[in-house]
């Protein structure tokens, strides 16, 4: 009997691939992993970059290849797509919770107050729109004085 691997199984295995810059969140939770196709022996992994210039894409490709190699899947076809354009709405609820627990304030709709991940106060101020990476802004809590990263809302202004 020939064992066949399903796309759903592979997607499950890829839960092990974390974002290189926020290593508690998987690429699936972040919305980078869009889908997996299985056609005979050929496995295609469809991913989208977060920001256009995101330097982590190369590391993510290597991590996907390594995770699949551990399951005896070699030479996967990893396709980087330009569409759909990634937005922070693609981050799953579990992704947001893990981000918060990691000390990064998850995205909020534009114009809404960002809560401090330490004391939960909404009395915070922006220090810089650009933080340690393009996807994060640097904030400071005015109540507990904690400086923290905020994962910026990334979506088109309609």
């Amino acid at each position, binding site marked *: 009997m020939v064992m066949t691997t399903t796309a759903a199984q592979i997607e499950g295995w890829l839960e092990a691939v974390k974002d290189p810059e926020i290593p508690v969140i998987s690429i699936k939770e972040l919305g980078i992993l869009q889908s997996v196709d299985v056609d005979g022996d050929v496995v295609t992994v469809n991913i989208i970059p977060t920001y256009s210039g995101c330097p982590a894409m190369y590391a993510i490709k290597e991590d996907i290849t390594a995770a699949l190699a551990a399951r005896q899947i070699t030479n996967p076809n990893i396709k980087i797509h330009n*569409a759909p354009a990634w937005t922070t709405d693609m981050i799953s609820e579990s992704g947001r919770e893990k981000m918060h627990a990691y000390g990064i304030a998850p995205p909020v709709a534009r114009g809404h107050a960002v809560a401090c991940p330490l004391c939960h106060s909404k009395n915070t101020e922006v220090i810089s729109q650009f933080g340690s990476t393009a996807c994060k802004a640097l904030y400071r809590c005015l109540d507990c004085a904690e400086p923290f990263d905020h994962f910026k809302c990334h979506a*088109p202004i309609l």
Partner: protein
Amino acid sequence: MDAQHLYPYFLRLADTSMTMSQRLSEWCGHGPYLEEDVALTNVALDTMGHANLFYQLAVEVADDDVTVDDLAFLRDAHDYRNPLLTELPRGDFAYTMMKQYFVDVYALLLYRALTESCYQPLSDVAKKALIEVQYHHERSHEWLKRLCMSTEEAHQKMQKALDDLWFYTPELFETDAGIQALHEQGTAPDMSVIQSEWSSMVETHLAQCQLILPETGWVATGGLQGEHSEHLGYMLAEMQFLQRAYPGCEW
């Protein structure tokens, strides 16, 4: 779709982003303070990402077997299609932010229009780039206001930057027969419409900042034909050094 016109158009878009990004990245380690240094280089990174996406579009329609790296690193100045504005030396912080503001408004309006392009790969790239450009525009507009409305010295420096750069801006909207043909096919927007939207937005903001538009100056032109200022050659000499010295070298 007519690849003959698409190829130079994608180079125009890509080269504009590439030269902007390279000039911005020169601020790395020289920003006025740490957070601003990080912000400048993050904008440079996004903008290099846009150049990469536009070069990919060019590669897809190219006659020859070229790569994105070939286009960025192995073409000489006369093959670059960016407007002269984006190749100018970075100057001081006022000069950099004024130029950034001009180009951010241009990119905001152009990419928004390109999301409607009938050439799907271009529309996809525009949708992606637009989200990032919105942040860049918010930031450079904030800096414009902050610098113009702070000290007298800051205001003077911004006025000087405006005087030096103003007549480089019409070239952003220049077209040629190829771009006109793309507009007629629904691939590219009407640049005269983009220009009038740009002028009304920018002139309103500049007036709010109590800056005065210069009346006369040399109106830059030539980038679309590969005729550049002397600055581009020096920029490329630095930017392309590694690929020229070590052909095919990868990071």
